[in-house]
């Protein structure tokens, strides 16, 4: 029986607690009375994954069974989430592989010849062949990739985009042409957190910049309270309008999967346990890992973390009509991640780990660290934010100005040029977004190399816009002061210093909450 998440109140019996900070973690002694939000323990995985997949495809929600939708001579496209989820990447076999194999088996039985598979990477970087292979598995990869029938979506390939129409609010709906012109589009999703899935899959994952700009903008994202609650997120409202409009033109069979909280494999298992329950072995593992990290060269340390493959277990799979499926998916995600919290705090503390959606096999640069902290973690709430309006946020991360030139070329210029002039999301959007979004060099790198789209760093900055609008102070502990100043924030050496600095905003005796994340959690703040 998995225990629910809960809120710990730090007292004299509480040992130091783990706080992630990039490619490492520290043991932090929090002030007495600090509230620490722990996610629910990992839920038991479904014992028979194949049976669960089969059941979902044969008895879908508000849809005919998948075999009934398949016929010879039809055009079938299978789209799937890219490497940005789950985090860390899933230990093989990835759940998408198992679902896609089941779909293809049914398609083969039905005599469907015209099948293509598209990675729904939107403006994310093109995945390498190995990365695609890890997601779909060797069998699918060998059958489709060499023939060019398994590929990354290209949001800048005008020849292969279809403008389906406008929503009732005038938003362009433009998606991958192959998908738009298929008789059936099967979307295979991994719903790691509540913001994934639903109409965010097809209308966003397979879209072009022209379509994405309607919801990926500062104004919409400031008004999304939060991204983890699609009923209150303006970004999702826009995606839902697009999805509903799309479903009038295109038959979509949505398959959504949910995972448990098995994030860290051994010997990092202690990171998923509640600290006071650490056995002697856990304590020894922690000490050994800490020592190893302290002496390891940067490259080795990077590998130690980025080679991690999570032993996730499947907790649910639903297929059929997108919205009906997604409601069930959200319930499953909440079962694993939702924690009830009473009231907001003056200060919210978060440790930013080594990995976010946009630095898989890459580097977490300062903009991505900001997006991870103020975008994803800050928005991991339902109801109201964990921190009160006008409060302070304290983040842990080294925030080194290290950029992966292959993956994040436009980030370098965004950091050096745009943020040097303004850190206000509305200002940078107004002044620079178009220039970066249409820059031919960035477009070229996005299409032919493995670079994120030129506009991507702007989107990362918009992700953080709601938090920047909500709190008055953002302080990074253990960060490079120069980088942090460029981001428009402040740096502190220790938590004590950070609280001292925040006292001008929240007073000398603030209430403090710490999100003990990862594993993933969503606070339900009453």
């Amino acid at each position, binding site marked *: 029986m998995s225990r629910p998440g809960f809120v*710990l109140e730090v007292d004299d019996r509480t*040992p130091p607690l783990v706080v992630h900070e990039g490619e490492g973690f520290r043991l932090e002694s929090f002030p007495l009375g600090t509230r620490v939000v722990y996610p629910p323990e990992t839920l038991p995985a479904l014992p028979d994954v194949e049976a669960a997949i089969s059941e979902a495809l044969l008895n879908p929600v508000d849809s005919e069974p998948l075999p009934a939708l398949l016929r010879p001579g039809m055009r079938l496209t299978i789209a799937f989430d890219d490497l940005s989820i789950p985090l860390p990447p899933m230990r093989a076999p990835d759940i998408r592989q198992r679902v896609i194999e089941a779909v293809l088996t049914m398609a083969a039985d039905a005599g469907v010849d015209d099948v293509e598979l598209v990675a729904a990477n939107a403006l994310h970087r093109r995945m390498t062949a190995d990365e695609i292979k890890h997601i779909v598995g060797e069998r699918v990869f060998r059958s489709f990739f060499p023939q060019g029938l398994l590929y990354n979506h290209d949001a800048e390939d005008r020849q292969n985009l279809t403008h389906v129409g406008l929503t009732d609010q005038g938003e362009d709906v433009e998606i991958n042409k192959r998908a738009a012109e298929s008789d059936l589009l099967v979307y295979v999703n991994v719903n790691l957190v509540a913001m994934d899935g639903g109409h965010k899959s097809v209308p966003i994952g397979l879209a072009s910049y022209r379509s994405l700009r309607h919801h990926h903008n500062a104004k919409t994202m400031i008004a999304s309270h939060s991204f983890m609650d699609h009923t209150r997120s303006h970004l999702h409202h826009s995606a839902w309008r697009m999805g509903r409009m799309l479903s009038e033109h295109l038959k979509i069979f949505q398959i959504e999967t949910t995972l448990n909280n098995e994030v860290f494999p051994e010997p990092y298992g202690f990171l998923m346990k509640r600290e*006071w329950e650490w056995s002697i072995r856990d304590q020894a593992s922690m000490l050994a890992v800490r020592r190893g990290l302290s002496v390891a060269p940067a490259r080795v340390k990077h590998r130690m973390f980025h080679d991690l493959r999570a032993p996730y277990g499947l907790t649910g799979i639903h297929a059929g009509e997108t919205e009906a499926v997604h409601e069930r998916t959200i319930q499953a995600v909440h079962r694993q991640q939702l924690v009830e919290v009473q009231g907001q705090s003056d200060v919210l503390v978060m440790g930013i780990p080594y990995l976010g959606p946009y630095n898989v096999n890459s580097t977490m640069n300062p903009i991505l660290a900001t997006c991870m902290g103020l975008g994803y973690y800050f928005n991991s709430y339902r109801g109201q934010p964990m921190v009160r309006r006008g409060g302070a946020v304290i983040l842990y991360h080294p925030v080194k100005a290290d950029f992966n030139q292959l993956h994040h070329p436009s980030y370098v210029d965004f950091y050096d040029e745009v943020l040097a002039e303004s850190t206000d999301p509305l200002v940078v959007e107004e002044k620079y977004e178009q220039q970066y979004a249409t820059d031919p060099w960035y477009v070229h790198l996005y299409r032919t190399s493995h670079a994120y789209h030129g506009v991507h760093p702007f989107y990362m900055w918009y992700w953080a816009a709601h938090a920047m609008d909500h709190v008055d102070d953002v302080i990074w502990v253990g960060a490079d002061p120069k980088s942090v100043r460029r981001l428009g924030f402040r740096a502190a050496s220790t938590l004590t210093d950070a609280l001292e600095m925040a006292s001008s905003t929240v007073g000398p005796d603030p209430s403090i909450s710490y999100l003990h994340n990862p594993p993933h959690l969503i606070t339900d703040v009453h």
Partner: protein
Amino acid sequence: MGRASVLSDGLDDVRKVARGWRWGRRPLVPRSAEAFVPEVERSVFPTAWSRTLPASAVREVAQKAGLEPVFRSQVRTRVEGLDVLDRVEGPVIFVAPHASHLDTPLILLSLPDRWRRTTAVAAAADYFFDTWWRAVGSALLFNTLPIERRGGAIATTPGDVLAEGWSLVIFPEGTRSKDGWMGRFRLGAAWLAVEHGVPVVPVVHRGTFAAMPRGQGWPSREPSTGHRAEPARGRSWTSRRGRRQLTIRFGEAISATPGESANDFAARVRAAVSSLHDEDRTTWWDSRRREAEGKTPDLSGPDVARWRRVWAQSESPVVDTERRRAWSR
């Protein structure tokens, strides 16, 4: 990073973990997390070996050559009522309030050797039997056997031990008092007495909470009372200084009447303990009179502020140690 820095950081980490995770001490759960501690299915730790002849021999040496000298060097004791044991056949169940870890050695070391050697102690499985070394140590030294106190379930072992002719010490509250006063009696002891037809010998003690309350690992010394110029009349200085004074009194054995329920018998045992405590605190005659009037003070203590309850119990009992003379001088 230099080698020295790596070493010192490593040592800092070890120190932090040793302190945070209380190496060498019992781990603690943060109070707000106590509700989320998982129920652990414990197997009954086998203790039959501790009641074999060789183990008894080792225990005899450990108690008489180790425990008793140390105990007597730290506290002073006054033992009363042992004559009741001459009027009862074993096995019996000794029932006592529980205020301190001193209670068990006080009871065992106060018993006549014949009784002490055939008496076992019921101890909380989740506390005394959570690690093998603690289980072995307590079983060997105190002849403990585990009982489950969570959920009210009681292991089968105590009944077997009684059936084998061993007497038992049971603290019916199931845990040490937080303020020195007696808590709610659980039914385990009464149920065992009814079920196995053995008498209950009520036992009371005073001063153990004052000497070594919860959270303290060793008996404290009596604080000096420098403000007193003279000892009170009839009392010696030694009763107020140095080693803490403990008292223990054994009461008349009581047995369940035919058809009496464990619930009713537990109430009678509790009343007997309260009356015995009143006797130890005052005199036999006064306590009898109060009992007849139904005015025996309840051992759960007065309904006053918590600090006053603790305050009242944190003073060691005063014992009249002046030697009486047959003829006045």
